[in-house]
């Protein structure tokens, strides 16, 4: 489903060149759950940006369902994210002026779906936020905000969910609950998940754990359930 071909990326800082990714090769199958770990500044977020089509690689390519992202226009990439991707951020990033329901419905609203609010409501009720539909982000706890963000990432039934440290801003107990919810919903919808996390307990619940270090991606654990998944 996702294929990274000799993917490289670098920044230049004055005269210095900082390599973020060096000829990374990766194949992720549909429905697979991948965790990416690595120290701060190792390029995990950059990799997610490249997977979401929000940044262009320096060299190599990202293919999503056979489509090379670097050959797509900005609008085509936006449509791709709208229809096939969901993103969960560490800092939740809910729209402060929208209620929980409106935040969860946002991807469907962008797509112009008439049943956006109804579908979002169903999902929020399913994850235990039925009493919080009209509450604004500022009126929700951190855990509740992240659950709304997960609902937003999954409400339009995307093929791929990108999650960037989804439990990073939560305490251990809440983080565990939120992580559980993410994995549970992912399993139910058979969505491909790419998870960036420091939490190795959380990471180990994924099919594969990859480590990003000095621009290179290496596999930490062997594939568990998906025999079609490939190592780097």
């Amino acid at each position, binding site marked *: 489903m996702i294929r990274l071909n000799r993917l490289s990326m670098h920044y230049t800082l004055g005269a210095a060149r900082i390599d973020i990714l060096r000829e990374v090769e990766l194949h992720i199958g549909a429905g697979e759950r991948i965790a990416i770990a690595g120290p701060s500044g190792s390029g995990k*977020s*950059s990799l*997610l*940006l490249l997977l*979401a089509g*929000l*940044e262009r690689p320096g060299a190599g390519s990202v293919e999503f369902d056979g489509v090379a992202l670097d050959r797509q226009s*900005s*609008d085509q990439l*936006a*449509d*791709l*994210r*709208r*229809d096939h*991707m969901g*993103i969960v*951020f*560490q*800092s939740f*990033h809910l*729209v*402060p*002026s*929208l209620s929980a329901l409106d935040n969860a419905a*946002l*991807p469907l*609203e*962008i*797509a*112009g*779906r*008439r049943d*956006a*609010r109804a579908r979002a409501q169903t999902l929020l009720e399913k994850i235990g936020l039925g009493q919080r539909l009209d509450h604004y*982000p*500022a009126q929700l706890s*951190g855990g509740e905000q992240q659950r709304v963000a997960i609902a*937003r990432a999954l409400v339009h039934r995307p093929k791929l969910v990108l999650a*960037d*440290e989804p439990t*990073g*801003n939560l305490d251990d107990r809440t983080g565990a609950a939120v992580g559980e919810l993410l994995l549970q919903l992912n399993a139910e919808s058979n969505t491909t998940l790419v998870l960036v996390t420091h939490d190795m307990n959380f990471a180990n619940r994924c099919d594969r754990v990859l480590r990003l270090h000095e621009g290179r991606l290496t596999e930490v654990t062997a594939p568990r359930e998906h025999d079609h998944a490939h190592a780097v």
Partner: protein
Amino acid sequence: MPMLFRLAWRDLRGSTRTLWVLCACLALGVTLIAASGGLYRQVSAGLLADTRTLFGGDLEVRSRSPLPDDVLAWMHSRGQVSRLIELRTMLMTESGEAHLVELQSFDEHYPLYGSVELAPPAPLADALAPQAGTWGAALDRTLAERLGLAVGDSIELGSARLEVRALIMRQPDRSLRADWSGPPVLIAAGALAETALLQPGSRPAHRYRVRTDAAPDDWRTAFATAFPGTDWEIRTFIERNARLGEVLGQIGSGVLLIGISALFIGGLGVFNSVHAYLQGKLGTLATLRAIGLRDRQLAAMYLIQILILAAASSLVGIVLGGLLALVGGGLVGERLPLAAASVRLLAEPLALAGLFGVSTAVTFALPALGQALTVSPAALFRGIDVDATRTPRRAWAMTAGAAVPALGLMLVIMPDAWFGAGFALALALTLALLEGMVRALRHIARRLSEHPLLAERFALRLALSGLHRPGSPLRPTLLSLGTALTLLVASTLVVHALVRTVEDTVPARAPALVFYDVTAADKDAFAELMAQSATLGQLDLAPLVLGRLIAVNGETLRDSDDSRRSLEARDEHKLSYLQNNFDQVVIERGAWWPADYAGPPRVAMEDREADQLGLKVGDRLRFEILGSTLDAELVGIYAQKRFQSRLWLEAIFTDGALDPFITRYVGMAYLDPAEAAAAQNRIAAAQPNVVSVRTELLLNEARGILGRAASGLSAIGAVTLLASLLVLISVIAANRMRHVYLATLLHTLGTRLGVIRLGLHLEYFLLAVLTTAFATIVGSALAGILLHHRLQLDTPFAWWPGALVALVVSVASLGLGAQHLLRRLRLSPAALLRGTD
């Protein structure tokens, strides 16, 4: 405290860039208030400080004929008396050009106060005295410029030829209306006799000025007791002072209101600017709190920063405003006697303007400051959105406390405190109305944005949600741009209505020449002279008889218990015939008589006079004319059209009723305006007692005044618009981070950039439409009130020019705003993933 000053100063030094809107808004408002306040002070000090001089004495007794000797003897025994005879007449130049002037003849005591300055310098009596058998005349400077006359030139007044001996550089009692009603020409009493203009039927004003040590009111009481039952008009300089002060106060207040409005609009810029500034300072606030700075100290530190900037901006405004007041004083000083500008004179209005600026800044900055200070450092570190913060009640209470001195200062600054109180009340009502409107619009926008019909129009939904979300620019835009555009719409509509009235109505119906004082004996000769004009289409000559209404239905008005009626009986009215309805009046109650009516006298009266006396159609009226009485039935009440009417006739009689009393006529000639000057000169040469006015000149004068009014109103519009644009910039600045964040998030979630741009454009277009609608409705209402009640123009006015101007300006300014925002809308999805928002 010095520590806080140091800290505030150091923190401010690196941050002033974001606060330039605050400085610009304050400087603009204070400049306008300081300039108009300083100018008003110079004018009022000049006109009100020594009204005796401007008035020409302590009292004035005014009469249509010379006062009897016994009255004069009584007056001379109680003060110094100077007689002035005033007469409107035509001045002829050697080239045959005629011009309407106010001829003034003085005795040797003139002026009782002040002195006349002539160029070349000479005593007035010497300049006017005969030399080689020719009397001298001193001409108003503007008249000499207009006619190209210089000292030594010869002029004709009536049947006398005089020599221009001097130009009047300063006349202490020059009428404030001299430029409009006729510039003054000074001649000696002997020269007036030689002009032969004082004929039976002519209407000179005999003005006896009195200089006395007695209190003017006591003097008047003694005079009225000594000579009861006379019709002479007695006025004191104190009355003149009060009336002048009232008029000046209203004009000054009106001008100052522009500055105060601009400062109020700018206050919104102050709020937004401080809000945006403190949003960017939340990290600093948190750090300072974390290291132990108390809340009160933190508040004081940022208040010190605001005070520093407010004081500096106000100082700039004071300097600019002071300079403008001096320049304006120089321009106004050519027309009006102004007090010399001095530090002492200008210090108070300038200082008040500065204080008002600072207190306005504090009032508008406190809510933003209060809101920022409620953000706890812990919340900041957790990344909770600043939208969760609200201005606490305590901050609102402090804002209200700061508004009280600001309001007090406004009332002190305004020359007319009632005007200021009215403005404050109107402002409060407008704000309440606006708040209601904003809430209703936000509600509608919310409902619409959630409507299923708009499900597939995400850009439109984005735009609608932009109107109801927290921090929406709807309220500040309506308040600032809406207020400015309201003024612009009202100004546009008033000017448009006036120009249309002058351009469309008057020229189509206006005579080219209007004549006064055609004597009965000269009437036929006058008609023959006019007939020489090849393009003469119509000549209407109607008698002008002066008389008083003395009884209504048998009740003698003079004995009436109703003071208005008894006073009315003393007024002299202008009476005439209908004569093709040449003064273009409109009957409103009753009806005109048939054209061939030949019965007992009937009369129609002007509505204001009739209403003052409570007259009704069918009343029996008795007039006193030249010592005789004339009875007539009131059959109609008519209204004058302000621009069409020229003679302001108070009563119109059936033909023949006034015949025994006719000594002179007034007339109107309809001919090619190009021929009017020649006809005027011909009449002036043959019948010098006839006063004539060229309508075209009056129209040009009216157009000139309207042009200046339009320029002035445009300037008002431009200034308020500038203030509102500054506010708009501050609104955009305050919301930029929010826009960037939202746009980035939406793009990351899959919204096309084009949709985001379209949504932003739609949001600003909706704002422009709402602002236009608001400004058109409120501006049209204002213009309607002004036109109908103040200017009493009954013609319906078109609202569309105002709406068009408002739409163009709002779309242009908000379009620029949207473009400006889009240029600065740099999306950064990486920031979302890297955990910084």
